[in-house]
């Protein structure tokens, strides 16, 4: 038994959604005059895709068209408009460059401030490097964030956080 549902357009303009039966069944239904589509031997009644017929036709037509014809239309600019476009493009690029520079400068400053602070801890405070040790300590267990951390969802799991998580699990 086939279970694909397709839409058929009846002659009256009514769209019917119906379960297609094997050939014999559809013939009997045709005899009864319920569906006005003609049977042809060897015609595929089984449709693999779930697309509508209209969409399928478009897809078929597109597949035989050359790639060049499917390209979006090229913008045709006059010389004036080309230069105007270049101006806009350059302005945008320059703005981005300036922003990037500001960000990089800020990060450099932050890094340098951090470095000088650490230098102070190392040499300025005469505590035998205790504070520097605290400041530059790396955590041995890299368990700051649970590996199970997930994006908030409307249906969270029953056990939200596994506090006893270990790598061997």
């Amino acid at each position: 038994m086939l279970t694909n549902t397709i839409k058929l357009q009846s002659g009256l303009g009514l769209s019917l959604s119906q379960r297609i039966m094997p050939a014999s069944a559809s013939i009997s239904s045709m005899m009864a005059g319920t569906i006005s589509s003609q049977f042809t031997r060897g015609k595929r009644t089984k449709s693999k895709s779930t697309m509508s017929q209209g969409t399928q036709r478009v897809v078929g037509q597109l597949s035989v068209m050359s790639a060049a014809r499917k390209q979006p239309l090229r913008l045709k600019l006059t010389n004036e408009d080309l230069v105007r476009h270049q101006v806009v493009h350059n302005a945008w690029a320059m703005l981005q460059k300036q922003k990037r520079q500001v960000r990089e400068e800020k990060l450099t400053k932050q890094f340098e401030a951090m470095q000088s602070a650490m230098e102070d801890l190392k040499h300025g405070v005469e505590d035998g490097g205790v504070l520097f040790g605290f400041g530059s300590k790396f955590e041995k267990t890299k368990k700051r964030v649970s590996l199970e951390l997930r994006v908030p969802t409307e249906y969270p799991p029953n056990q939200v956080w596994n506090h006893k998580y270990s790598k061997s699990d």
Partner: protein
Amino acid sequence: MITSVAKSRSIPNVVIPGSRAFFSTVVGGVRSQEASQSSTASSTINEEGVWSQFDKRSESLKIKNPILRNELLHGIDPAKGPLTLKKGLSKMKYTSPTGLDEVFPLAYNFLQETAKEKYSQVTEIESQIAAETDEAVKTQLLKKKNQLIIDAEKFNPEVAYKAQFSNPENLNLDELVYQYYYKTKNFEGFNKMLLMQRIEQLHVLPDAIPTINPSVELKVKFINESGVNKYITPGDILSSRATSKPPIFQVNYLNIDEALKPSDKFTLLVVNLDHPNTKTNSYDITLNYGVKDVSFQHNNQVLSFDELSQGEFAEYLPPVPEKNSPTSRFVTLLLKQEEGPLATEKLNFNRKDFALADFLTENKLVPVGINVWRSKWDGNVKNVREMYGLPNGRVFHRVRR
């Protein structure tokens, strides 16, 4: 965000309402409702900015045609259509890309403000140069200044339009920005590549000089009764009639990093790399034309014969190839004189067997420009020989053995 950037970087403090939306509409080519609404707020270009001031800037940076200039700065009038399209139907059909007219003033004003800052930096550097005594530092500053002048003008739509769409022969190459455009687009983008290909393939390198990176464009044109008005393409085979009288040269100095000084002198040589020598069963280099102490101040300058005749140390001898000898290569070299003017009496050379490499090292000459043409025997060689009172040429056997 943008305003905060402006404050911290002391860049021109321009407020660009909804600029992100504008740019994205232009780049993506999709008109969003939000963008088209907010565009009505600010949409005029600043016509009192640096790019509209021509008291200090050259007039060549301006587009002369008022209609074209208006279209470039204020957009195309849909009622009249673009000036650059000729057909009435095309004019009528044309529409500018969506959103371009709205976003252009913002972009223009933004770039103009950065240009203004560049110009203020230029004045700063100029005062530094005036105070500086160290030559090395001075040249460094000069280099920086030139770059700033180019950066200030290269995004100016009027300049960009002229550089891209006008005849390169009419560009004012004394303006650094046009020099920059000509160098990148016309010279390095095409002419230099062609020239290098030809001189490599014709083995001008290394037969004439070991190598060269031309910083000056050297163009050669022959003026004779035929009236042909064309600079030769490197490697052209020219008839003996075409080359029977000395050529004129055009030079474009395109070394932006090192400006041309009035004291700079150049030597111009035309040499034949393929003069047969039956004694050694090989070839000699002959000197066909030699001019020293050539100077030029402006670009696109034509060095005519009359100007060159003052520094001429070897009169022009036309190519007169001999029958059945292979095609001869005539190389024109523009050489920079490292040590100022050359003294004629010190010049030591033999025209018939010209030691080119020795001549260059002895006189401290550095090749900066090059061009080449080829000549072979034709029916007119006899007449050219008669013109110059030269003896009859040798005739070689047709078959090489």
